[in-house]
């Protein structure tokens, strides 16, 4: 590699001065653009007046602050970015990096151990327990979607549909037939898997972005049906009074045949929360275990082959139809399990809980985790929902920050938090590879026209 010779020393001051000028110019342009963007939408606030007509108030102070912030920010970036050619990633020696990737196994074990201990550590803190349940639920959804997106490489923007099918299946079956949670759970999973098949059949021929949009449409269709089929689903009012789970037949009540009385414990409502936590943790670990095992089976290898190159895998005799359908229904089944859990935990469900935003959140978790990495999904779910909690006081900014984070992550860390992969198939020795050489979700060799 021949590097271009460094510029002569005496030229530097002049170049530097020019840099400052150029930076100021750049910052001024950025500020001008910011002014154009925000002058109407932030500078002027419309409100419905007492007569019903719109009135407006001006907020030019805020506008000026934002434009000034953009100017200063752009200026600082323009002045500093030229010198910062050494990134932190390059400072870490390669041997240390290799050791770190070996640590991933221990990190995963530590993560699971901590997850198991959460109810014991935080037994008295109901808030943390509820948050932990939420995080594990999304981790499970992430694992489920990971089968479709990370392994089979099919981009699914309507994953929430299966979550909804699972939740409504559980709620309706449990209410109409009085069956227990443990019978309804597999039924909800099976019904969601059927929904996955139903979606899978028509979209088999689609690729990449088209597939994404169709799955998005499917998710919305399910939501709109739930919203409008009043007799069956209760419409916008949803379904309430969904039976709570019992400890293998022992309800969590203060009654004599309840959980607490049977085991001779003083009654506490926390028992149920702890039980729910272990329930979802067991489901999530089951999903993880099944995924890891499936990756070693022929079907899992077929998924990964499909992700890498659809045409090549077809040429090798892989039946792409069944491969895609199994991926869809597997992912859907786990989504259905999570949905059933969601229904029994909340006791109330409505179409409000199954919007496109949920699909986007689960997809963001999978992408942020580094598509295909199980540990990454768990870390990303924790980071994402933990971050949401930190922003609790700023509810209206929550989604704004979430969207911006999604853009920033894709730009600055496109391979996700865990950006190494351990291939399922290897020669002589198992080793991790950078995710950059693994293909991404696109399923097919579509080239832009």
């Amino acid at each position, binding site marked *: 590699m021949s590097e271009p010779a460094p510029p002569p020393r005496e030229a530097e001051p002049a170049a530097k001065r020019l840099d400052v000028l150029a930076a100021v110019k750049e910052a001024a342009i950025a500020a001008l*653009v910011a002014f*154009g*963007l925000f*002058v*109407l*939408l*932030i500078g*002027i*606030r*419309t*409100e*419905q007046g007492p007569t*019903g*007509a*719109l009135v*407006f108030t001006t907020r030019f102070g805020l506008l000026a602050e934002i434009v000034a912030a953009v100017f200063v920010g752009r200026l600082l970036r323009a002045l500093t970015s030229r010198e910062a050619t050494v990134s932190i990633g390059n400072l870490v020696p390669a041997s240390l990096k290799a050791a770190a990737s070996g640590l991933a196994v221990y990190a995963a074990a530590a993560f699971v151990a901590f997850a198991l201990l959460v109810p014991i550590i935080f037994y008295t803190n109901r808030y943390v327990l509820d948050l932990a349940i939420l995080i594990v639920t999304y981790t499970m959804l992430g694992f489920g979607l990971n089968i479709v997106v990370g392994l089979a490489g099919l*981009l699914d923007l309507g994953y929430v549909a299966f979550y909804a099918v699972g939740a409504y299946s559980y709620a309706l079956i449990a209410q109409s037939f009085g069956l227990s949670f443990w019978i309804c759970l597999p039924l909800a999973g099976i019904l969601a898997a059927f929904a996955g098949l139903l979606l899978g059949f*028509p*979209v088999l*021929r*689609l690729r*990449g*972005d*088209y597939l*994404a*949009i*169709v799955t*998005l*449409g*499917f998710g*919305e*269709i399910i939501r*709109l*049906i739930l*919203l*409008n089929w009043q007799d069956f689903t209760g419409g916008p009012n949803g379904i309430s009074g969904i039976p709570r789970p019992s400890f293998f037949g022992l309800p969590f009540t203060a009654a004599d045949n309840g959980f607490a009385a049977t085991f001779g414990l003083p009654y506490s409502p926390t028992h149920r929360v702890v039980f729910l936590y272990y329930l979802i943790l067991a489901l999530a670990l089951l999903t993880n275990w099944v995924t890891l095992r499936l990756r070693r089976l022929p079907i899992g290898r077929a998924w990964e082959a499909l992700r890498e190159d659809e*045409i090549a895998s077809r040429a090798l005799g892989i039946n792409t139809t069944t491969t895609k359908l199994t991926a869809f229904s597997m992912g859907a089944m786990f989504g259905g399990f999570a949905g059933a859990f969601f229904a029994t935990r909340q006791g109330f469900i409505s179409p409000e809980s199954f919007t*496109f935003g949920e699909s986007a959140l689960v*997809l*963001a978790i999978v*992408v942020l985790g580094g598509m295909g990495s199980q540990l990454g999904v768990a870390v990303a779910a924790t980071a994402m929902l933990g971050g949401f909690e930190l922003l609790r006081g700023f509810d*209206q*900014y929550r989604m*704004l920050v*979430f*969207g*911006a*984070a*999604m*853009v920033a992550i*894709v*730009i600055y860390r*496109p391979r996700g938090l865990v950006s190494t992969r351990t291939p399922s198939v290897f020669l002589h020795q198992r080793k991790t590879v950078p995710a950059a050489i693994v293909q*991404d*979700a*696109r399923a097919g*060799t579509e*080239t*832009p*026209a």
Partner: protein
Amino acid sequence: MEYFVQQLINGITLGSIYGLIAIGYTMVYGIIGMINFAHGDIFMVGAFTALIAFLVLVAIGVTAVPLALFLVLLVAMALTALYGWTVERIAYRPLRHSFRLAPLISAIGMSIVLQNYVQVAQGARVKPLPPLIQGGYTLFEGNDFAVRLSNIQIIVVATTLVLMAGFSFLVARTRLGRNMRACEQDLKMAALVGIDVDRTISLTFVIGAALAAVAGLMFLLYYGVVDFFIGFFAGVKAFTAAVLGGIGSLPGAMLGGILIGLIETMWSAYFSIEYKDVAAFAVLIIVLIFLPTGILGRPEVEKV
């Protein structure tokens, strides 16, 4: 019969709005092969910009409706085009050579940002605007039902036709249009023959956003209310229109828009209004399955 004709008129008006948005999708998809998921929200930003610009103009004393509307159109187009440019610059350009899924995820993030930005800045409640353009013509009457063609419907369709003509001219006859068509065929080759690819892509986003702003203004005038969530459904339907007409094809986008508008209106009129969005999504799925290249699209050749 009269009822049908009335629905036909309504459907074509709605379809014109979808068609204008669909052009933005079809151009961007044609050139860089990505679904600009945030385009629906650009349309929403356009509608809000138009609304606020109109309020400001009234406040400073421009009350003549035609002049005010013309100024609003210019302001909305300019500022929304700036949004289109910024979104491309921030969220898509750094990802030009990234993995294939990256721009789509970034676009979804951008869509969430735009929606919530407008919600934070302007509030979540719907914004009403009193009808500015009233009156119309009764075409014919029969069976106690009068078929009406309102002035606003005429304006929407006429504006769309003018813009379509102007835009077709731009693509077919100007230097920029030639650059755009070259980029559509092959980005790398276009760069090799001296076309500034970055600039062409930026301008594509700018033009698409400006047309979306016009659609936003039309939507505002036609329905009289906007809120921060209109972009999602309008965006998906416009994308459906682009796919139905054949993605990459400009007349296709317009044709698809009108067909989607008609399907939605007819479905609401004859079946159920609750399921009109389901109808639009179902059309999208059916078209993609049975007619993946759309009505006027070129068949895609699979290369290994």
